[in-house]
Structure formats: structure tokens, C-alpha cells
């Protein structure tokens, strides 16, 4: 695990249809400590996915800098694991081989990487699914695989791009609870992108509110862990925090 530092990050690109330059991200700075869980929340088009794509190295930055463990980001790499909204599991690989993919690329031998994969699958209660193909799993199970596949590669920073947006509401709550549990066990540094205010507050140590490419505010979340929806649904502190974030997002 390492810290993540974002300084004066900007992204402008040329919109060929409009025929002008558009600023998607403007002067965003953020410090994420080692082992911290930070949610970035904002409405569609606020630039949150653009920021994640720049941290991941998928798209180039046009201003400022991104440092992981003090070193600038140059393209995608295994130090930053990504969990995709679309899962992006490899359909031609079994669940076990999907999770073992990162260790395999590192050159870990077969027996050892399968041991690692099984350990992480157990963490997400996926032991039974090891031999199945992704298309044979429900959406919720697929994304569990997506999360542990990224974790099994032991990245310095885990980037999650609206990972639970395409599963049903009940499954989403379960996945959120499991994620907080796994985070407490493994303590990865996490950037979690979402448009769901409740989700952002529920998961994070800190919530960053983004609007029109700018950082509006940061709000610390000092709720006790382990967190569960049963408890937090009636928790006044959780409600107050959620309302504050919601007001910021809506005013944006």
C-alpha cells in the first residue's frame, strides 16, 4: 500500500463536434494517505471518471501531477488496480484464472498463484465458483470476482469506478458491506468513484465532492467500523453526513 498525491490536476481536450477546447477536470488537488478509503462523489459529467482514468494511466493528463508513493504516474501499471463498472472479467478464463491473472503476469508459478487466488476467492465467499466461467455468474458475483482479482495483485492503490452501479439494490448493499469488511482486513488505499451519496459515505473515511470538474469540498467520515446498513440506516451521524454531502452535490 502507498499514498496517492494529486496536485493541480487538469484535463482539457479538444471537442471536435463543438470545435473548441473543453475542460473536464480543473485544478484538483487531493492527498490520500496509505490505507485510506476515499470516495469521490458527484453528478454525471462532473469529471470523476476522468480523474480515475488519469490516475489509472488510461488517458494522459494535461496539467498538474499524480504521484503514487511519491513517483509520477506514467501509463497503466500493476501498482494501481482497477475495478470496472462493466466488471471487465476475461470471459475465456475461469473465475480462478481471472483472479490468478495478476500473479501470473508477475511470473508467479502455477501452484502458488492458484493458492493466492483461492485465498482471495474465500475472502469474497467465492470458493464454490472457482471453476466456473464469468458468464455463468450473476452480476453481483461477477463484481466480487472483479474486486478480488484487483486485490489479489496487491496493488498500491485500488481504483474503483462505480463498481456497484450495475447490480440490483439488495446485492449492492451486500457488496458494500463486504467491501468494508475486506478493506478492514487488507487495508488497501482506495479511491472509490460513485454518484450515490449514501454509498460514498457508507464506505469511506473521507468523501470528496466534485462538480463541473472542480473539487467543491472534502468531508471526513468518522463513523465506527465495521459498518452495516442495519446499523447505519438508523444512525443520526450517518444521516447528517449523508445530508450534508447530498446538499453539496445538489447545489452543485
Amino acid at each position: 500500500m502507498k499514498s496517492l498525491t494529486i496536485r493541480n490536476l487538469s484535463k482539457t481536450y479538444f471537442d471536435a463536434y463543438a470545435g473548441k477546447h473543453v475542460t473536464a477536470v480543473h485544478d484538483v488537488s487531493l492527498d490520500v494517505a496509505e490505507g485510506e478509503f476515499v470516495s469521490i462523489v458527484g453528478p454525471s459529467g462532473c469529471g470523476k471518471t476522468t480523474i480515475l482514468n488519469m490516475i489509472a494511466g488510461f488517458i494522459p493528463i494535461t496539467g498538474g501531477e499524480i504521484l503514487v508513493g511519491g513517483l509520477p504516474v506514467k501509463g497503466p501499471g500493476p501498482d494501481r488496480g482497477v475495478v470496472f463498472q462493466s466488471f471487465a472479467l476475461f470471459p475465456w478464463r475461469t473465475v480462478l484464472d481471472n483472479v490468478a491473472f495478476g500473479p501470473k503476469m508477475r511470473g508467479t508459478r502455477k501452484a502458488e498463484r492458484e493458492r493466492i487466488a483461492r485465498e482471495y476467492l474465500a475472502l469474497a465467499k467465492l470458493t464454490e465458483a472457482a471453476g466456473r466461467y464469468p458468464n455463468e455468474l450473476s452480476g453481483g458475483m461477477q463484481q466480487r470476482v472483479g474486486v478480488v482479482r484487483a486485490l489479489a495483485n496487491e496493488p498500491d492503490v485500488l481504483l474503483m469506478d462505480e463498481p456497484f452501479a450495475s447490480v440490483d439494490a439488495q446485492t449492492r448493499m451486500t457488496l458494500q458491506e463486504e467491501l468494508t469488511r475486506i478493506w478492514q482486513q487488507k487495508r488497501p488505499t482506495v479511491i472509490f468513484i460513485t454518484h450515490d451519496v449514501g454509498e460514498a459515505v457508507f464506505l469511506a473515511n473521507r468523501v470528496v465532492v466534485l462538480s463541473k470538474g472542480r473539487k467543491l469540498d472534502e468531508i471526513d467520515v468518522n463513523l465506527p467500523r465495521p459498518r452495516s446498513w442495519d446499523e447505519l440506516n438508523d444512525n443520526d451521524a450517518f444521516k447528517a453526513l449523508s445530508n450534508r454531502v447530498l446538499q453539496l452535490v445538489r447545489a452543485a
Partner: protein
Amino acid sequence: MITALHRAWGRYVRLTTHWPAVASIVPFIPFVLMWWAVVAAGLFPRAFLPSPVDVVHSFADLVYKGILPEYLQDSVMRLAVGAFWGIALGIPLGILIGMSQLAHRALWPLLLFFQAIGDIAWLPILVIWFGYGLVTMTFVIVYTVIFPVILNTVLGVRSIPINMHRAALTLGASRLRIVWEIVLPGALPNIVTGLRNGLGYGWRALIAAEIIVGTSGIGFMMFDARRAGSVVEILLGMIILGVLWYIVDSWILAPIERATGQRWGLVTR
């Protein structure tokens, strides 16, 4: 009556799940019976339209003389050699063009130009260059197989979601490993479609080439039979073509499809 039909159909379905070969033979029974009936009605002279039995006799006769096994082997070998080179060249080229913008710009117009010159259109010049031999045959088959393989491979490579590449990169895959781990399996369903088209065209091109430049093979046998006025051997050749393709499809192509694209949920059954 309806329930009896229903029950019979149920029994047939159960039978074919136990013996899939039955399902591939049964549809031909009415067809052969009709053929038989037309012959038995005596509308045409026997030399003009032989009966199924005559064809079976001719089959046994040619197998006994050793002509048919030899010709069959020649044709299948030519197709196998041509298909091997068509696949060995076509898939890497397709992946290159699919992945590299530069390769696409450089090669795509050439590809479309040469695709338009049909395989048979090459035969006149090939015969002058290489004579009536295996080189000419192989060239024609490779030429026919390679275009569908390349075009479908390119399509397959380009239809892999960008997040597959991104996921592999963030898990530490190098660009080279991505070709093997992501691009090849991701494009495989399209590659198999390309193979299916390519081999189908290749099989036809082979018969055409054998008719024009051949000295052996199923195509040669059919054309030779025309010279001898043996309709029965022509019909036999036609039947062999259909049966062979059926075997290639159900023993080679379909199992690959079941084990890959269908298994992975990339292609719906």
C-alpha cells in the same frame, strides 16, 4: 392422432440426444426417397439420372479399384495444406491490422484490391507461372481462405472492449502478453467464423481448380466422368463434396465453437 405424433416426436428427440448421428442422417431420408421415386417412375433414361443404388454401387466399385480413396486423399491434402497456410498467415496478419493503425492504413486498400480478384481469376497466370501442380492448387486455396480469415480476425480484434485491454494492463500484462492473453481469445469467435467461411470457399475453389488444372482429386473425377458420360460418378462426386463438408463442420468447426465462444458466453447458442 396429435398425441401420437407428439409422442413419436418426443421419442425422436430422446433418440437423437443419445445418438446425435441419427439427427444428421434422418433429414436426408425423404430426400433420397424422392430421388428414388423419380428414378423408379422411369421419367428419364437410367444413364441420365441414375438411382441411389447405382451411386452406391459406383462408390463401392471406385473404392475397390482404389481410385476414390486416392482422389479423396489428394483433395483433402490439398485443402489441408492450403488451409494451414491460409490460417498461419491470415490470423497474424488480421491481428496486426486489427491492432495497429499503421498496418491498417498500409494494408487495408491492398487487401480490398486483391480480395476483388477472385481465386479462379488467378488460375490463368498461375498455370503459366507454376504449371499444373500442387503450387498452383495451394496458391488458389490459400488465396481463398486467407481473406475471410483476415477480415473476420480484424473485426474480432476490434470488437474487444477497451476495458479488457485496460484490465490486463493494470494487472501487469505486457503488450506482447496481451496479444496472447486478451486479443487472441477475444477475437477467437470471429476467427472461427472466418475459418468457416474461408474453408467453405476454399473447398469450392479446390474443386474448381481441380476441374481446370487437376490430374487427380474429386473435382477432376467429376470432370473426367463428364468426358466419359458417367452421370453416376458425377453424382457420387457431388455427394462426397457435401458429406465431406458436413464432416469438417461437425467434427472440427462446431466443437471448436462449443468449446470457445459458446462456453464463454461470447456467442449465444
